[in-house]
């Protein structure tokens, strides 16, 4: 039976001691981190701290050393993320911190993905995501992106305040079958409609499925603006993305 002292990384030890309360979770985490190499513990610590450049560097170095991609993913990245999930659940950290961790996760996964796809794990598809023009809200969109990436989509994040041309350029450039738009304000929601109109005007509308979401958006508004789907939250976003792609495949595009 492993004990806390078996974990070499001091930061991880402190995290477990300080933030984990449920005995089964403490036990499981100690067991996990006592088993993994110090390098993987360091990567996990980078994830927990939300340090994307550290994770980026450590992951690349680990792969260069010949450490198996799956081991890095399991023992480093995901192990770290599991602590993040618990800390968030118990309100030690909040959404902005979680998103920083997700960013660090992405930095690590960027190195892992090519190796995974070489093993036959294909991306589910490419999604362009952005918050519409005039709107600077990004949390909902970022949570969606986190989920989509986790589920195996390739996501190109255009950020906030994205105009129609930028959306169209990105869809064309990445030949993305799927576009997700977010708006958090009633005043910017109409710009979703504008963007869809622009796609129609440029005869690009049939090439892409468009999903929309955000506080003021409802299924009815989504229908009114001519979107293909509406997702009420980040979970719905993933299943929506999957079903839109299936729909698209069925249409033989």
């Amino acid at each position, binding site marked *: 039976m492993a004990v806390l002292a078996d974990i070499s990384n001091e930061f991880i030890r402190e995290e477990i001691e300080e933030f984990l309360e449920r005995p089964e979770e403490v036990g499981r985490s100690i067991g996990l981190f006592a088993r993994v190499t110090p390098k993987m513990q360091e990567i996990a610590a980078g994830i927990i701290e939300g340090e994307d450049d550290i994770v980026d560097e450590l992951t690349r170095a680990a792969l260069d050393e010949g450490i198996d991609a*799956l081991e890095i*993913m399991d023992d480093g990245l*995901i192990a770290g*993320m*599991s602590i*993040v*999930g618990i800390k*968030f*659940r118990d*309100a030690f*950290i*909040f*959404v*902005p911190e*979680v998103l920083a961790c*997700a960013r660090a996760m992405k930095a690590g996964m960027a190195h892992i993905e090519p190796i995974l796809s070489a*093993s*036959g*794990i294909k991306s589910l598809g490419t999604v362009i995501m952005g918050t519409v*023009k005039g709107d*600077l*809200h*990004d*949390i909902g969109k970022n*949570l969606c992106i*986190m*989920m989509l990436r*986790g*589920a195996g989509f390739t996501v190109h994040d255009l950020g*906030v305040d994205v*105009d*129609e*041309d930028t959306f169209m*350029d990105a869809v*064309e*450039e990445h030949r993305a079958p799927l576009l997700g738009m977010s708006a958090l*304000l*009633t005043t910017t*929601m*109409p*710009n979703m*409609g*504008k963007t869809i*109109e*622009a796609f*129609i*005007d*440029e*005869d*690009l509308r049939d090439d892409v499925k468009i999903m929309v979401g955000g*506080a*003021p958006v409802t299924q*009815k*508004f989504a229908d*009114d*603006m*001519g979107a293909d789907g509406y997702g009420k*939250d*980040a*979970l719905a976003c993933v299943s929506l993305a999957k079903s839109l792609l299936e729909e698209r495949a069925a249409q033989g595009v």
Partner: protein
Amino acid sequence: MGSEVSDTRQQEIQKSLDRLTEILSGIVVQADEQSLTRCPYKNARDECTAQFGCRNQRKRTVEGERRLVCVGDDKLDYREAWDSDPESVKKAGDALAATRETGRRRRDARRRKSRTGRQKRKSGHRTSNAGRRTSNAGHRTSNAGRMARQAGQTLFDLADELSKQVPTSCGRSGLCHECIVEVHRGMDALMPRTDPESFLEGNYRLACQAAIIEPGSGIEFSPLRRVPKILTRGRRRRVDLDPMVTRSGDAVHYGGRPVDQYRGGIYGLAIDLGTTTVVMELVDLESGETEHVCAFGNPQRIGGSDVMNRISYDGKHRRELWRVVANTINYEIACMSDRFGFAPSEIYETVVVGNSTMRDLFFRLDVQSIGTKPYKSLTEHEWQQGKRESTALSASARRLGLKINRNARAYSPPLVASHVGADVAAGLGVIDFDGDERTVMLVDIGTNTEVVIRHDGRMLTASCPAGPAFEGGLVKYGMPGYEGAIDRISFTGDGFDYTTIGGTAPQGLCGSGLVDLLAELRRHGQISAKGVFAEKRRREMTLVPERNITFSREDASNLAQAKAATYCGQFILMRHLGLTADDIDKLYLAGAFANYIDIDNAVEIGFLPGVPVERIEKIGNAAIQGAREILLSRRHRTETEQLVRGIEHIELETTPDFFEIFVEACQLKPMPGKPRYWN
């Protein structure tokens, strides 16, 4: 065999990915739940991480660090900090429906137009490489624009064709309300107002929304801004440099506190928000020099031409008037910045003056209380109740929507009383109103004329709602002092001699021309004191036959009433103090159009009292001048705040014999030397 190994590995990887998804799903579910009770932009240190300037963000010093903290109440739905009231949700829905409808109409029109069928944009690009595709992005907008222009054209498209400048900042989506235009001809040739235009009345439209039904039907329209040629700078006095904003080494200080790094310049902006005309003066706060003055028609005229109309408009369409004027000011700042090579972020303070309504609208205050008895600004009510020290206002310029330095402040001197606003307070500072021993009167002529008298230690003020008749309103060929306005006119017996501003072909008469006209017609017996033409049944006379410029009895009557308001203000105040015109030692005439007025003619029709001409001084736009001095001198600011405290306000309408005086005042004749209604 190889594929079997690969299969196992794939399964392992998939298992890991599934576990990750499981963790993330837990997080997302939790985030969703948590966001009901805690704003998701708030981090573990209770700092606000929002990039969009949430209204609950405050800069606070916590543990010696400047932090953006959230002061929102998490118990409530944090989304209130954004914008989710039912009305705006409905508006957004309407805008969506409108966008779709316009798009559909446009495409239908395009389809009908092109017999050859649509040119698929992508056919040319799909095969080319990605880089090429991106570089083509620039062309897209212009292509789309061109197509739209062929049919289902909007006024904005038409303006593009005519190279007319119409401002916009929302990509012509009907959201920013900057592209308001006045349609002079052809309202019928336009589609009905769309939902984004529901706040507009009369002949005003949003250029981006107004679709043209019949192209080529001679539609005439102009953007809201028109630059008047009459720019008065007022008296330039030397002011001891003591501005609120100063440079201290590499830092810029506001009232002694560091607010920014020195960027190469420190500017202040004086703004006189006239009901009809807005004047802005850009002042270099390091040298005290005025860098630039500009003036433009107040775009708030979409809400009516006088103060009362605007108050009721603001009641119906809250903040639209604020928005339209802030937009226009930003546009002018951007133009100035382009032309004179300074950055808007180098403007650290703006001093804004205007009558009570104009000022409060600008500061986003509710103005309804100014529209009902006792006609006082909320700030004046609060001041009287001891809730504030003064009616002066100070606010973050960013909160007021001004695109200048992010730490810039907007200051307004106090109101004098009731409708008599901060513009008059600023103007009084320019003439050293309380430093003088004699009997002094200031008349600031405008859409709302204000009178202030000081005599024997007493100071009285009144506001006279003259209306816009002398500034282009209510008179068929009246116009503000733009190019082409007749500014001088005299009767020759069989016709009229005149001069125009800019010497161009006449388009109408501005205020000074109208005063001349009334006096000349009276002098030559062409019109009676009651405004009846010599040929009694005549309704209209021709002034400039070749341009069809006419003058009607109705015009004369509207001018007489506007004049009467000014008359009443001066007369009643003078009477209160037992004064006649002879007793006035100094009469200061302020206001842009006062500078061009012929004094003899003004006295002839009873626009001004018969104060000997050598005692009258025209001081031009005293308000902007005062605003400039307040920018430059903190002492001046305090003095102005002190000065207004002693001024008593006389409500003209409550004078018992007001009606009789007003009827008398409507006559086109001089004010009596000895007041007839002597108490």
